[in-house]
């Protein structure tokens, strides 16, 4: 019989106790960071230096050593080099990073000797067409001469700006238009 009343009192008291906890949380500012618009500082800027976001290539620094391509465990980096028949100079004709396949492990960045390949703090690259997720850092038909270490100091764009330019102008133009025909 005593257990009977003990059960009742225990339940009532513990329930009241729990209610005080939840009630006290009613009077606190929420913890939510209202991404993307209602925040003072965009998340990309608050992320730490080591954050591994989308990969980007500063082509002016790339020496075309293909170390990243060899290091990647899952072949999601495609670099191709061709030698000009006449001038005998190497040209990087392709530098594709398949963001849709990349597992941001950072092994390729560790392998890069010049720091031309780097992780950014950009992450919002969702797209309606998987083909847009292949980040082409060298456009077709515009090959780039590899960076010579003893040459003039190359101009290095700020980290994240390259890939940001690639993923911004993208979505609404490509995918939404394509989706417009959906019945």
């Amino acid at each position: 019989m005593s257990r009977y009343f003990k059960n009742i009192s225990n339940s009532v008291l513990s329930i009241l106790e729990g209610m005080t906890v939840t009630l006290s949380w009613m009077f606190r500012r929420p913890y939510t960071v209202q991404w993307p618009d209602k925040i003072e500082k965009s998340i990309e800027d608050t992320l730490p230096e080591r954050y591994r976001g989308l990969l980007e290539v500063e082509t002016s620094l790339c020496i075309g050593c293909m170390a990243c391509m060899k290091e990647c465990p899952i072949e999601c980096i495609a670099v191709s080099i061709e030698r000009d028949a006449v001038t005998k100079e190497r040209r990087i004709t392709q530098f594709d990073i398949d963001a849709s396949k990349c597992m941001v492990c950072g092994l390729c960045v560790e392998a890069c000797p010049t720091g031309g390949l780097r992780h950014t703090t950009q992450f919002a690259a969702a797209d309606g067409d998987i083909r847009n997720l292949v980040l082409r850092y060298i456009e077709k038909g515009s090959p780039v001469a590899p960076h010579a270490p003893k040459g003039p100091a190359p101009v290095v764009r700020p980290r994240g700006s390259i890939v940001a330019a690639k993923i911004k102008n993208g979505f609404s133009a490509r995918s939404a238009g394509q989706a417009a025909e959906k019945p």
Partner: protein
Amino acid sequence: MEYLLTNTEWFLNWGRKSSIWYLLFASACCGIELMQAGGPRTDLDRFGAVPRATPRQADLLIVAGTITYKMAERVRLLYEQMAEPRYVIAMGSCANCGGLFQGSYSVLKGVDKIVPVDIYLPGCPPRPEALADAILKLQQKMSAEKWLRNLRA
């Protein structure tokens, strides 16, 4: 008439895109980030997106993580059980194309082999904000739909 149709359609699309109920379905690593996305910091509920446990009442199937051949049939069944209009987000590399498990013998190489995908979301796993971004882009896509006018045509 056209004007009226367009406005009604805008209104209906607004209703659809403002309450995206996603299916509570997490298959692998991305599931944790999906969970965190529903959690306090990145609160998907802000956009009216709440998880539903049953596919009947869900509008959005977020394929979060690796899908194996053994699981693939079930995923397709889930998709079939959802009521029109239904949308799919392939979250993470594994759902996009098999990702780092493309070389595996038992993993489905991309979920778009079995269900039509509306939004591909890169990352392994994508951080919760990226998922919110994907849902916002899906809203763009939904608001651009012309289904009512197509119905009339």
